[in-house]
Protein backbone atom coordinates (compact mmCIF):
# COMPACT_ATOMS: atom_id res chain seq x y z
CA UNK A 1 0.00 0.00 0.00
CA UNK A 2 2.82 2.32 0.85
CA UNK A 3 4.40 1.73 -2.55
CA UNK A 4 1.17 2.66 -4.29
CA UNK A 5 1.13 5.86 -2.27
CA UNK A 6 4.72 6.78 -2.96
CA UNK A 7 4.36 6.12 -6.67
CA UNK A 8 1.23 8.26 -6.77
CA UNK A 9 2.48 11.15 -4.66
CA UNK A 10 6.16 11.03 -5.60
CA UNK A 11 7.44 11.69 -2.08
CA UNK A 12 7.71 9.80 1.17
CA UNK A 13 6.05 12.38 3.38
CA UNK A 14 2.81 12.62 1.38
CA UNK A 15 2.84 8.89 0.85
CA UNK A 16 3.02 8.35 4.59
CA UNK A 17 0.03 10.67 5.09
CA UNK A 18 -1.98 8.92 2.38
CA UNK A 19 -1.21 5.54 3.86
CA UNK A 20 -2.33 6.62 7.32
CA UNK A 21 -5.51 8.22 6.00
CA UNK A 22 -6.34 5.12 4.00
CA UNK A 23 -5.86 2.76 6.95
CA UNK A 24 -7.83 4.99 9.29
CA UNK A 25 -10.66 5.23 6.78
CA UNK A 26 -10.61 1.50 6.26
CA UNK A 27 -10.75 0.67 9.97
CA UNK A 28 -13.49 3.20 10.63
CA UNK A 29 -15.62 1.76 7.84
CA UNK A 30 -14.74 -1.84 8.39
CA UNK A 31 -18.43 -2.61 8.94
CA UNK A 32 -19.09 -1.87 5.28
CA UNK A 33 -16.82 -4.70 4.17
CA UNK A 34 -19.16 -7.57 3.36
CA UNK A 35 -16.59 -10.27 2.55
CA UNK A 36 -13.60 -10.47 4.90
CA UNK A 37 -11.63 -12.24 2.17
CA UNK A 38 -11.82 -9.13 0.02
CA UNK A 39 -10.09 -6.95 2.60
CA UNK A 40 -6.86 -6.58 0.58
CA UNK A 41 -8.59 -5.39 -2.55
CA UNK A 42 -10.91 -3.19 -0.55
CA UNK A 43 -8.02 -1.52 1.25
CA UNK A 44 -6.12 -1.12 -2.01
CA UNK A 45 -9.11 0.63 -3.55
CA UNK A 46 -9.42 2.97 -0.57
CA UNK A 47 -5.71 3.77 -0.79
CA UNK A 48 -5.92 4.51 -4.51
CA UNK A 49 -8.98 6.70 -3.98
CA UNK A 50 -7.13 8.65 -1.30
CA UNK A 51 -4.21 9.16 -3.68
CA UNK A 52 -6.53 10.20 -6.50
CA UNK A 53 -8.15 12.73 -4.22
CA UNK A 54 -4.73 14.03 -3.26
CA UNK A 55 -3.70 14.31 -6.90
CA UNK A 56 -6.88 16.15 -7.83
CA UNK A 57 -6.06 18.77 -5.22
CA UNK A 58 -2.38 19.09 -6.06
CA UNK A 59 -1.86 18.54 -9.79
CA UNK A 60 -2.17 21.42 -12.22
CA UNK A 61 -2.93 20.22 -15.67
CA UNK A 62 -1.46 22.38 -18.44
CA UNK A 63 -3.36 22.74 -21.70
CA UNK A 64 -0.17 22.06 -23.65
CA UNK A 65 -0.07 18.55 -22.26
CA UNK A 66 -3.04 17.54 -24.37
CA UNK A 67 -1.10 18.04 -27.59
CA UNK A 68 1.65 15.66 -26.62
CA UNK A 69 -0.17 12.53 -27.57
CA UNK A 70 2.26 10.59 -29.75
CA UNK A 71 1.66 6.88 -30.11
CA UNK A 72 5.11 5.60 -29.17
CA UNK A 73 3.91 2.42 -27.55
CA UNK A 74 3.84 0.32 -30.67
CA UNK A 75 6.99 1.71 -32.19
CA UNK A 76 9.54 1.29 -29.41
CA UNK A 77 11.55 -1.80 -28.54
CA UNK A 78 11.23 -3.50 -25.18
CA UNK A 79 13.86 -1.29 -23.51
CA UNK A 80 12.60 -2.13 -20.01
CA UNK A 81 13.43 -5.84 -20.11
CA UNK A 82 16.95 -5.54 -18.77
CA UNK A 83 16.33 -2.66 -16.43
CA UNK A 84 16.32 -3.31 -12.67
CA UNK A 85 12.82 -2.83 -11.34
CA UNK A 86 14.07 -0.77 -8.41
CA UNK A 87 15.32 1.76 -10.95
CA UNK A 88 11.95 1.75 -12.70
CA UNK A 89 10.28 2.39 -9.35
CA UNK A 90 12.71 5.23 -8.61
CA UNK A 91 12.08 6.88 -11.96
CA UNK A 92 8.34 6.52 -11.67
CA UNK A 93 8.53 8.48 -8.41
CA UNK A 94 10.59 11.14 -10.15
CA UNK A 95 8.09 11.68 -12.97
CA UNK A 96 6.40 15.09 -12.97
CA UNK A 97 3.01 15.42 -11.30
CA UNK A 98 0.16 14.65 -13.68
CA UNK A 99 1.86 12.18 -15.93
CA UNK A 100 3.12 10.22 -12.93
CA UNK A 101 -0.43 9.64 -11.56
CA UNK A 102 -1.77 8.73 -14.99
CA UNK A 103 1.11 6.32 -15.58
CA UNK A 104 0.70 4.62 -12.22
CA UNK A 105 -3.07 4.29 -12.58
CA UNK A 106 -2.88 3.02 -16.16
CA UNK A 107 0.22 0.81 -16.13
CA UNK A 108 0.23 -0.46 -12.55
CA UNK A 109 -3.35 -0.25 -11.30
CA UNK A 110 -4.87 -1.36 -14.59
CA UNK A 111 -7.22 1.59 -14.94
CA UNK A 112 -8.56 2.54 -18.36
CA UNK A 113 -8.10 6.04 -19.71
CA UNK A 114 -11.82 6.67 -19.42
CA UNK A 115 -11.73 5.80 -15.74
CA UNK A 116 -8.61 7.86 -15.14
CA UNK A 117 -10.15 10.83 -16.91
CA UNK A 118 -13.27 10.57 -14.77
CA UNK A 119 -11.42 10.09 -11.49
CA UNK A 120 -8.84 12.79 -12.02
CA UNK A 121 -11.29 15.21 -13.62
CA UNK A 122 -9.48 15.50 -16.95
CA UNK A 123 -10.33 14.56 -20.50
CA UNK A 124 -9.60 11.13 -21.86
CA UNK A 125 -7.16 12.57 -24.38
CA UNK A 126 -5.27 14.30 -21.59
CA UNK A 127 -4.97 10.97 -19.81
CA UNK A 128 -3.63 9.33 -22.97
CA UNK A 129 -1.16 12.09 -23.70
CA UNK A 130 0.07 12.12 -20.11
CA UNK A 131 0.68 8.41 -20.29
CA UNK A 132 2.71 8.77 -23.49
CA UNK A 133 4.64 11.57 -21.90
CA UNK A 134 5.41 9.46 -18.83
CA UNK A 135 6.59 6.54 -21.01
CA UNK A 136 8.80 8.82 -23.02
CA UNK A 137 10.33 10.40 -19.92
CA UNK A 138 10.84 7.04 -18.27
CA UNK A 139 12.61 5.64 -21.28
CA UNK A 140 14.84 8.66 -21.64
CA UNK A 141 15.76 8.83 -17.99
CA UNK A 142 16.22 5.13 -17.42
CA UNK A 143 18.24 4.66 -20.60
CA UNK A 144 20.43 7.54 -19.61
CA UNK A 145 21.01 6.10 -16.14
CA UNK A 146 21.69 2.62 -17.45
CA UNK A 147 24.24 4.05 -19.88
CA UNK A 148 25.90 6.11 -17.17
CA UNK A 149 26.09 3.20 -14.77
CA UNK A 150 27.20 0.88 -17.50
Amino acid at each position, binding site marked *: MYNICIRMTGNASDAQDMLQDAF*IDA*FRHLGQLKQPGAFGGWLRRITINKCIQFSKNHVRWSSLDQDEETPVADQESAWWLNVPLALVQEEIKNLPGGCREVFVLF*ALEDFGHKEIARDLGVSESTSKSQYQRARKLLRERITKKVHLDG
Partner: protein
Amino acid sequence: MDKLKEYLLSHQAELDVDPPANDSWENIASKLRPGPGFSRRVIGYAAAACVIALAGAGLWMVMQGKKGSADIAKHVTGEAEKGGANGVAHGPKAEVGQGPAKGVAEEAAGAVAQGPAKVGQGPAKGGAEEAGGRRHKARARRRPAERPDEIEAIDKSYSSLIDYQLKKLRATPLYAEDGHYFSFYTEQFKQMDRDEQQVRNDIKTYGLTGEFLEQLINVYQQKLNVLKNLQTEINKMNNKVREKQSPSGKAEVHYLNI
Protein backbone atom coordinates in the same frame (compact mmCIF):
# COMPACT_ATOMS: atom_id res chain seq x y z
CA MET B 1 -2.36 -4.63 -24.29
CA ASP B 2 0.48 -2.20 -23.95
CA LYS B 3 3.64 -4.33 -23.53
CA LEU B 4 5.19 -2.09 -20.90
CA LYS B 5 1.95 -2.20 -18.93
CA GLU B 6 1.84 -5.96 -19.26
CA TYR B 7 5.44 -6.26 -18.06
CA LEU B 8 4.94 -3.93 -15.11
CA LEU B 9 1.70 -5.62 -14.04
CA SER B 10 3.38 -8.99 -14.03
CA HIS B 11 6.34 -7.68 -12.02
CA GLN B 12 4.43 -5.39 -9.72
CA ALA B 13 5.55 -7.11 -6.53
CA GLU B 14 9.19 -6.56 -7.49
CA LEU B 15 8.54 -2.86 -7.89
CA ASP B 16 7.45 -2.50 -4.28
CA VAL B 17 10.85 -1.75 -2.83
CA ASP B 18 10.08 1.26 -0.66
CA PRO B 19 9.43 0.38 2.96
CA PRO B 20 7.06 2.57 4.98
CA ALA B 21 8.37 4.52 7.98
CA ASN B 22 8.80 2.58 11.22
CA ASP B 23 6.25 4.63 13.12
CA SER B 24 3.51 4.20 10.51
CA TRP B 25 1.54 1.69 12.56
CA GLU B 26 2.00 3.67 15.70
CA ASN B 27 0.62 6.78 14.02
CA ILE B 28 -2.34 4.90 12.60
CA ALA B 29 -3.10 3.28 15.96
CA SER B 30 -2.87 6.58 17.82
CA LYS B 31 -5.26 8.21 15.37
CA LEU B 32 -7.73 5.36 15.72
CA ARG B 33 -7.65 5.50 19.52
CA PRO B 34 -10.30 7.89 20.89
CA GLY B 35 -8.39 10.44 22.93
CA PRO B 36 -9.58 12.66 25.81
CA GLY B 37 -10.83 15.22 23.30
CA PHE B 38 -13.17 12.64 21.89
CA SER B 39 -14.77 11.76 25.24
CA ARG B 40 -15.07 15.44 26.13
CA ARG B 41 -16.80 16.07 22.83
CA VAL B 42 -19.15 13.14 23.35
CA ILE B 43 -20.00 14.35 26.88
CA GLY B 44 -20.62 17.83 25.50
CA TYR B 45 -22.96 16.52 22.84
CA ALA B 46 -24.77 14.33 25.39
CA ALA B 47 -25.23 17.29 27.73
CA ALA B 48 -26.56 19.43 24.90
CA ALA B 49 -28.96 16.69 23.86
CA CYS B 50 -30.24 16.38 27.46
CA VAL B 51 -30.83 20.12 27.73
CA ILE B 52 -32.72 20.16 24.43
CA ALA B 53 -34.79 17.12 25.44
CA LEU B 54 -35.67 18.67 28.82
CA ALA B 55 -36.60 21.98 27.22
CA GLY B 56 -38.75 20.15 24.68
CA ALA B 57 -40.47 18.09 27.37
CA GLY B 58 -41.13 21.22 29.45
CA LEU B 59 -42.59 23.03 26.48
CA TRP B 60 -44.76 20.07 25.62
CA MET B 61 -46.06 19.83 29.19
CA VAL B 62 -46.86 23.54 29.25
CA MET B 63 -48.70 23.25 25.94
CA GLN B 64 -50.60 20.17 27.10
CA GLY B 65 -51.49 21.89 30.36
CA LYS B 66 -52.95 24.91 28.60
CA LYS B 67 -54.89 22.72 26.22
CA GLY B 68 -56.19 20.54 29.06
CA SER B 69 -57.36 23.51 31.13
CA ALA B 70 -59.13 25.02 28.16
CA ASP B 71 -60.89 21.72 27.38
CA ILE B 72 -61.98 21.23 30.97
CA ALA B 73 -63.27 24.77 31.28
CA LYS B 74 -65.23 24.44 28.05
CA HIS B 75 -66.60 21.04 28.94
CA VAL B 76 -67.45 21.78 32.55
CA THR B 77 -69.25 24.99 31.66
CA GLY B 78 -71.52 23.03 29.34
CA GLU B 79 -72.22 20.42 32.01
CA ALA B 80 -72.92 23.06 34.63
CA GLU B 81 -75.56 24.50 32.34
CA LYS B 82 -77.05 21.04 31.86
CA GLY B 83 -76.99 20.48 35.58
CA GLY B 84 -78.82 23.77 36.07
CA ALA B 85 -81.60 22.63 33.79
CA ASN B 86 -81.87 19.39 35.74
CA GLY B 87 -82.13 21.30 38.99
CA VAL B 88 -85.13 23.20 37.73
CA ALA B 89 -86.79 20.13 36.31
CA HIS B 90 -86.39 18.17 39.52
CA GLY B 91 -87.50 21.10 41.54
CA PRO B 92 -90.54 20.01 43.66
CA LYS B 93 -88.48 20.46 46.79
CA ALA B 94 -86.31 23.24 45.46
CA GLU B 95 -87.06 25.48 48.40
CA VAL B 96 -83.90 24.06 49.94
CA GLY B 97 -82.15 26.19 47.35
CA GLN B 98 -79.03 24.03 47.05
CA GLY B 99 -79.86 21.79 44.09
CA PRO B 100 -77.31 19.85 42.06
CA ALA B 101 -76.95 22.78 39.69
CA LYS B 102 -75.03 24.70 42.26
CA GLY B 103 -73.11 21.64 43.26
CA VAL B 104 -71.95 20.97 39.69
CA ALA B 105 -71.01 24.60 39.23
CA GLU B 106 -68.87 24.43 42.33
CA GLU B 107 -67.30 21.26 41.15
CA ALA B 108 -66.66 22.84 37.79
CA ALA B 109 -64.98 25.81 39.35
CA GLY B 110 -62.89 23.51 41.48
CA ALA B 111 -61.83 21.38 38.52
CA VAL B 112 -60.74 24.40 36.51
CA ALA B 113 -58.85 25.85 39.42
CA GLN B 114 -57.08 22.56 40.00
CA GLY B 115 -55.74 22.65 36.46
CA PRO B 116 -54.50 19.90 34.18
CA ALA B 117 -53.69 17.43 36.93
CA LYS B 118 -57.38 16.58 37.08
CA VAL B 119 -58.04 16.08 33.42
CA GLY B 120 -61.10 13.95 32.94
CA GLN B 121 -62.44 14.78 36.40
CA GLY B 122 -65.37 16.45 34.72
CA PRO B 123 -68.50 14.77 33.47
CA ALA B 124 -68.55 11.16 32.48
CA LYS B 125 -68.74 11.54 28.72
CA GLY B 126 -65.71 13.81 28.48
CA GLY B 127 -63.73 11.51 30.73
CA ALA B 128 -64.56 8.53 28.58
CA GLU B 129 -63.47 10.30 25.40
CA GLU B 130 -60.18 11.35 26.89
CA ALA B 131 -59.54 7.91 28.31
CA GLY B 132 -60.32 6.44 24.88
CA GLY B 133 -57.79 8.73 23.23
CA ARG B 134 -55.12 7.81 25.72
CA ARG B 135 -55.88 4.13 25.23
CA HIS B 136 -55.35 4.46 21.48
CA LYS B 137 -51.98 6.01 22.08
CA ALA B 138 -51.07 3.28 24.51
CA ARG B 139 -52.09 0.60 22.03
CA ALA B 140 -49.74 2.10 19.49
CA ARG B 141 -46.86 1.41 21.87
CA ARG B 142 -47.49 -2.15 22.94
CA ARG B 143 -45.12 -3.38 25.60
CA PRO B 144 -45.26 -6.47 27.73
CA ALA B 145 -46.03 -6.19 31.43
CA GLU B 146 -42.91 -5.69 33.48
CA ARG B 147 -44.27 -5.60 37.06
CA PRO B 148 -47.57 -7.49 37.27
CA ASP B 149 -47.75 -7.17 41.07
CA GLU B 150 -47.60 -3.39 40.88
CA ILE B 151 -51.16 -3.12 39.60
CA GLU B 152 -52.36 -5.28 42.45
CA ALA B 153 -50.76 -3.04 45.08
CA ILE B 154 -52.25 0.11 43.56
CA ASP B 155 -55.59 -1.63 43.24
CA LYS B 156 -55.65 -2.54 46.91
CA SER B 157 -54.79 0.89 48.22
CA TYR B 158 -57.25 2.78 46.02
CA SER B 159 -60.00 0.18 46.29
CA SER B 160 -59.98 0.31 50.08
CA LEU B 161 -60.28 4.10 49.99
CA ILE B 162 -63.12 4.01 47.51
CA ASP B 163 -64.91 1.27 49.43
CA TYR B 164 -64.63 3.28 52.62
CA GLN B 165 -66.08 6.36 50.94
CA LEU B 166 -68.89 4.31 49.38
CA LYS B 167 -69.82 2.73 52.71
CA LYS B 168 -69.91 6.13 54.30
CA LEU B 169 -72.19 7.47 51.57
CA ARG B 170 -74.54 4.53 51.73
CA ALA B 171 -74.88 5.01 55.46
CA THR B 172 -75.56 8.74 55.20
CA PRO B 173 -79.30 9.51 55.47
CA LEU B 174 -80.79 11.84 52.85
CA TYR B 175 -83.31 14.15 54.52
CA ALA B 176 -84.08 16.57 51.70
CA GLU B 177 -84.07 14.41 48.57
CA ASP B 178 -84.22 10.80 47.54
CA GLY B 179 -81.39 9.04 45.73
CA HIS B 180 -82.61 10.07 42.22
CA TYR B 181 -81.83 13.66 43.01
CA PHE B 182 -78.13 12.79 42.96
CA SER B 183 -78.29 10.71 39.79
CA PHE B 184 -75.83 13.04 38.11
CA TYR B 185 -73.15 11.88 40.52
CA THR B 186 -74.14 8.23 40.46
CA GLU B 187 -74.13 8.19 36.64
CA GLN B 188 -70.73 9.80 36.64
CA PHE B 189 -69.50 7.14 39.03
CA LYS B 190 -70.88 4.34 36.87
CA GLN B 191 -69.17 5.76 33.81
CA MET B 192 -65.91 5.79 35.70
CA ASP B 193 -66.46 2.16 36.60
CA ARG B 194 -66.76 1.42 32.91
CA ASP B 195 -63.59 3.42 32.19
CA GLU B 196 -61.76 1.49 34.85
CA GLN B 197 -62.91 -1.80 33.39
CA GLN B 198 -61.72 -0.73 29.96
CA VAL B 199 -58.27 0.18 31.27
CA ARG B 200 -58.09 -3.15 33.07
CA ASN B 201 -58.96 -4.99 29.86
CA ASP B 202 -56.25 -3.05 28.03
CA ILE B 203 -53.75 -4.00 30.69
CA LYS B 204 -54.74 -7.64 30.35
CA THR B 205 -54.30 -7.48 26.58
CA TYR B 206 -51.20 -5.32 26.21
CA GLY B 207 -49.52 -5.57 29.59
CA LEU B 208 -48.99 -2.95 32.23
CA THR B 209 -47.34 0.11 30.77
CA GLY B 210 -46.64 3.42 32.44
CA GLU B 211 -49.43 4.97 30.43
CA PHE B 212 -52.04 2.44 31.50
CA LEU B 213 -50.96 2.78 35.10
CA GLU B 214 -51.40 6.53 34.88
CA GLN B 215 -54.86 6.08 33.36
CA LEU B 216 -55.88 3.72 36.13
CA ILE B 217 -54.66 6.08 38.84
CA ASN B 218 -56.54 8.93 37.14
CA VAL B 219 -59.77 6.95 37.14
CA TYR B 220 -59.36 6.11 40.83
CA GLN B 221 -58.69 9.73 41.69
CA GLN B 222 -61.72 10.86 39.69
CA LYS B 223 -63.87 8.31 41.48
CA LEU B 224 -62.66 9.53 44.87
CA ASN B 225 -63.33 13.14 43.90
CA VAL B 226 -66.85 12.38 42.72
CA LEU B 227 -67.63 10.53 45.95
CA LYS B 228 -66.16 13.31 48.03
CA ASN B 229 -68.18 15.95 46.17
CA LEU B 230 -71.32 13.87 46.54
CA GLN B 231 -70.74 13.55 50.27
CA THR B 232 -70.25 17.31 50.59
CA GLU B 233 -73.43 17.99 48.64
CA ILE B 234 -75.50 15.59 50.77
CA ASN B 235 -74.11 17.09 53.98
CA LYS B 236 -74.96 20.60 52.84
CA MET B 237 -78.52 19.68 51.98
CA ASN B 238 -79.01 17.77 55.22
CA ASN B 239 -77.76 20.73 57.22
CA LYS B 240 -80.15 23.09 55.46
CA VAL B 241 -83.06 20.77 56.18
CA ARG B 242 -82.08 20.46 59.83
CA GLU B 243 -81.87 24.24 60.16
CA LYS B 244 -85.36 24.79 58.70
CA GLN B 245 -87.08 21.89 60.39
CA SER B 246 -88.92 22.37 63.68
CA PRO B 247 -87.48 20.24 66.51
CA SER B 248 -90.63 18.11 66.68
CA GLY B 249 -90.99 17.64 62.89
CA LYS B 250 -90.01 14.31 61.34
CA ALA B 251 -88.34 14.33 57.91
CA GLU B 252 -88.57 11.50 55.44
CA VAL B 253 -85.26 9.63 55.26
CA HIS B 254 -83.75 8.04 52.14
CA TYR B 255 -80.50 6.29 51.53
CA LEU B 256 -78.32 6.42 48.47
CA ASN B 257 -78.04 3.32 46.32
CA ILE B 258 -74.63 3.61 44.73
